[in-house]
């Protein structure tokens, strides 16, 4: 049974950005989210990098899954294979960007090493496998999830900038308050549920 009959690419795209935001509803990519979201320019760079890497790796992992792992009956090795392919893609992107443009490297490239351990990247590849997406759906889902993550991190960095000025209880300063803020964001985004659904 396949979910493809249910999802047109358009609604999958918007669902993965808004209703099923990878961060707000699947909790993924939080470590780098919390570490980086302090200032907006690096949030922006990281968001962009995540979007690019997500799109590329989801497609590559789809190809590996369907043309290598499944034919060879090696699906149980997918965790290792996916993480290695993600690391390789990240490494290659870093090299390419470094050659192509120094400005782009400073904006985007320096965030790439952080991305290998961003659970959102591996998470999207694993969801893609579990939900049995087609190649097209996987690319759209990867792109949408990246954009959704980017949006969430930009919103959060602006909020954090504002809260940094206030005298928050020292126990709550930083991560604690960030968690509560993400809670409110997730609560707000629930409103869109039922309009579109992914999965």
């Amino acid at each position: 049974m396949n979910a493809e009959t249910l999802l047109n690419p358009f609604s999958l795209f918007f669902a993965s950005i808004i209703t099923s935001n990878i961060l707000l509803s699947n909790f993924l990519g939080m470590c780098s989210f919390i570490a980086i979201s302090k200032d907006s320019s690096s949030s922006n760079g990281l968001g962009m990098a995540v979007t690019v890497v997500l799109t590329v790796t989801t497609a590559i992992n789809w190809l590996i899954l369907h043309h290598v792992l499944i034919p060879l009956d090696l699906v149980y090795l997918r965790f290792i294979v996916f993480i290695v392919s993600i690391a390789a893609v990240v490494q290659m992107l870093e090299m390419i960007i470094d050659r192509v443009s120094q400005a782009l490297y400073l904006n985007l490239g320096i965030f790439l090493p952080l991305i290998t351990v961003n659970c959102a990247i591996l998470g999207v590849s694993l969801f893609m496998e579990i939900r049995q997406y087609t190649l097209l759906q996987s690319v759209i889902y990867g792109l949408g999830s990246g954009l959704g993550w980017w949006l969430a991190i930009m919103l959060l960095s602006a909020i954090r900038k504002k809260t940094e000025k206030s005298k928050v209880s020292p126990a709550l300063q930083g991560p604690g308050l960030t968690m509560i803020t993400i809670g409110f964001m997730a609560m707000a985004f629930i409103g869109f549920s039922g309009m579109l659904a992914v999965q």
Partner: protein
Amino acid sequence: MSSPKEIMRENLWTNNPIFMQILGICSALAVTNLMINTLIMTLGVVFVTAMSNLTVSLMKSLIPRKVRMIVQTLIIAFYVIIVDILLRAYLPDISRALGPYVGLIITNCIIMGRAEAFAQSNPPVLSLWDGVTSGMGYMGVLMTIAFVRELLGFGTVLGFPVLPSGFEPWIIMVTPPSAFFLLGIIIWIGKTIMNKEGATA
């Protein structure tokens, strides 16, 4: 070098991976709506942290520096796949419920963090102990969240109904925002206590 007791205290409380560093929550926060899922998931994390710490410590003199990270990732992925295979074979329902989150243990920063920060420079048995206690510190926080979520969301503890039948379940507890709120509140309370301890000590 720290004694096993100190390591335990550090990992469980004063330097708890979630409290102090907010590490590794991604892979497990999503499954905290039921205690049984959280228990299995965090046991998996304890197992992987402990074993990968042990393995890294045993092999540390053999691993070439250039590929250290990749080899560590391989070791972690190896144990995660073992957990996945075991769950599929012996706990199929829980394996289904955990979905992709088992695989995401690989990217749990705690594991890599402990391998890098502790196992790399400590003897095997101590590293194993460090892994176990780090995992337990992680488990403690997540089980607390899961306890509140399951109690208020379903009125049960580990699947056993404990609240009177007139109890009105808090549906939000079963949805994602509550996990964020609870984690925020737990950090808030935990750090307040810690700060007081620090002030009196």
